[in-house]
């Protein structure tokens, strides 16, 4: 499949430096702005035809007289569809296709926020005055009024106090409000274009909206970042920023400035295999620990949220605890049970688990049921493979090829394409997103990881 040879890098390509150059403010390449822009472009390239077909079909299926109306809505939601295309390939391995809609939906809102222009110097000063009654120049020994990086819903400034370099995140005013109103405004249109009914997708969208709103809550991020950082401190080769509550407020978050490079630039320095392995191992252990012990995961394992260094044989700095998914006990049981060899070997057990997860439904026709079962079995065999082996080589090109072949395969399935509603537990959205991101990081790192240990 020559057209897919570039696929493994697609999700990571979204941090490509060239896009950042177009954005004068953000000299660092992994800004979310650049990422979002690139993301959309990637999606356009990969998934446009596929997605257009879908959009048109779902539009045409309803009524032809309302074509214009729908076309307008489709136009508005074009970007969303494109996003859907780009995440689709990899993510399909982990989820039933329609489950991804909420992820695309989340990304779409996120992108809308990223597109806000940078805050002006005076507004940053104002944010500080509102929060502390003092300007940042009084609060810190040094404060750079030029933002270093655009964060998801604000921007990051470099400051110094008592000889320490600090990263100060400042949130755009009224973001939480505008997310809420955007959701109210756009949801009906989105559902219409996708041909979905509100009732079917409500739990998924609620899950996404909760996460999005949580991201605007810096007090929560501070608490979670401090907590997860402290509890994960024993995981080797990880570095967490210390948060400073006395220098933080609802719209301002101050933490240590971590050193290191984002994945893309780091790989350009040509790190040795040993360093890659250690970095990969640190990431894997970090996620295994969060998953199995903390039961809450940093659900945004995007390359932009990790800083890599070759120091001490490879150190990973973890940023941005804005998106954290807490895993309820039953969901945890289900998720881990699905990845065991037993579930794979025993069809009845797998069917029982999938029914519990809401992927199989009692009212499904036998052929439908058999189809879902075999599809999920194939996906789980492949996706769960690292979990069933003591060590796993994420650099193995055969594995990536198999993953993408599976993705293509699923896309060709008429049964899946006709599926009109998402299935499965809403909690899986962010769990899937987490593991998609982690796999993407590890494959890009080409790391060999001890996966069975934990």
């Amino acid at each position, binding site marked *: 499949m020559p057209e897919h040879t570039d696929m493994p890098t697609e999700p990571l390509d979204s941090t490509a430096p060239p896009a950042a150059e177009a954005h004068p403010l953000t000299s660092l390449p992994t800004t979310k702005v650049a990422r979002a822009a690139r993301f959309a472009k990637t999606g356009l390239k990969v998934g446009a035809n596929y997605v257009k077909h879908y959009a048109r079909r779902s539009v045409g299926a309803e009524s032809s007289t309302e074509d214009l109306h729908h076309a307008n809505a489709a136009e508005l939601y074009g970007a969303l569809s494109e996003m859907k295309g780009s995440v689709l390939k990899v993510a399909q391995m982990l989820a039933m296709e329609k489950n991804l809609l909420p992820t695309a939906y989340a990304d779409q809102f996120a992108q809308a926020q990223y597109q806000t*222009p940078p*805050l*002006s*110097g*005076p*507004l940053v*000063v*104002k944010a500080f*005055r*509102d929060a502390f009654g003092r*300007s940042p*120049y009084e609060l810190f020994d040094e404060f750079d*009024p030029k933002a270093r990086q655009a964060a998801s819903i604000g921007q990051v400034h470099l400051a110094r106090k008592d000889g320490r370099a600090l990263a100060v995140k400042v949130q*755009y*005013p*009224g973001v939480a*409000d505008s997310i809420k109103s955007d959701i109210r405004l756009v949801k009906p249109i989105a559902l219409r274009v996708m041909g979905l009914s509100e009732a079917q997708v409500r739990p998924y969208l609620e899950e996404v909206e909760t996460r999005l709103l949580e991201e605007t809550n810096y007090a929560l991020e501070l608490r979670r970042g401090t907590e997860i950082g402290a509890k994960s401190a024993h995981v080797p080769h990880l570095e967490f920023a210390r948060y400073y509550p006395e220098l933080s407020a609802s719209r301002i978050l101050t933490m240590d400035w971590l050193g290191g490079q984002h994945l893309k630039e780091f790989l350009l320095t040509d790190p040795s295999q040993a360093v890659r392995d250690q970095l990969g191992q640190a990431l894997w252990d970090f996620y295994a620990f969060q998953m199995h012990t903390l039961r809450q995961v940093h659900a945004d394992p995007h390359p932009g949220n990790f800083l890599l260094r070759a120091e001490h044989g490879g150190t990973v700095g973890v940023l941005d605890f804005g998106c954290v998914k807490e895993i309820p006990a039953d969901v945890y049981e289900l998720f881990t049970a699905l990845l065991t060899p037993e579930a794979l070997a025993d069809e009845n057990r797998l069917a029982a688990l999938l029914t519990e997860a809401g992927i199989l439904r009692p009212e499904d026709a036998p052929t439908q049921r058999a189809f879902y079962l075999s599809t999920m079995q194939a996906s789980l065999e492949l996706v769960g493979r690292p979990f069933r082996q003591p060590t796993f080589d994420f650099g193995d090109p055969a594995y990536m090829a198999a993953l993408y072949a599976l993705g293509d395969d699923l896309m060709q399935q008429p049964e899946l394409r006709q599926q009109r509603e998402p299935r499965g537990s809403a909690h899986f959205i962010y769990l899937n997103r987490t593991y998609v991101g982690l796999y993407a990081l590890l494959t890009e790192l080409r790391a060999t990881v001890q996966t069975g240990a934990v």
Partner: protein
Amino acid sequence: MEKDRIKQAYLDYVLRKSTPPASVFKLTQKLGMPESEFYRYYATFDAIDREIWADFGRDARERAAQEPVWQTYGAREKLLAFYFTLLELLKQNRSYALWSLRTYLPKMPGLTPRVLDDFRQDFELFVDELLREGRHTEEVASRPLVQGQYPRFFWAQVLFVLGFFAKDDTLNFERTDAAVEKAVTLSFDLVGRNSLDSALDFARFLIRRR
């Protein structure tokens, strides 16, 4: 200072009753001073309102200029800093500010209430100065025919911001902050060199060729 006492008493009265005192006599009686003392400083209550607003404007300009980064700001940022400082002042006096805006701001947008007359004069001078500075740094395009109207254009922006502030019901007036940011960015995009200048230039070229 008798003048300050009168101003303060008036302000207190308005804050308590949400309306000006019924007469000058009633106010001066409360203060235990002859009515004529009031007229030494002010002609009417409206004059006090005008002065309070002019004070807001002056304080905002002075405080904004005290910021250590003020000198490094361009014209756009200076105007932003002025607005944000002004909003901060208004927030500190929000009961009075909201009362007077809601009472005096005309229903028709674009008309200036008389209480803002003095504030307006100072503001237009301030903007004129900013724009001159901006023309030096080429932040603002030189358009001899129209640039005389710019202060009025920016005054309309002030009225917009104040109106927005008066109606804003978000926590801590966050939407007003965003409105200011966006309005000022737009206005400086308009007064800066933009496609309009190129279009005019092109049109002029075509006309001259004949």
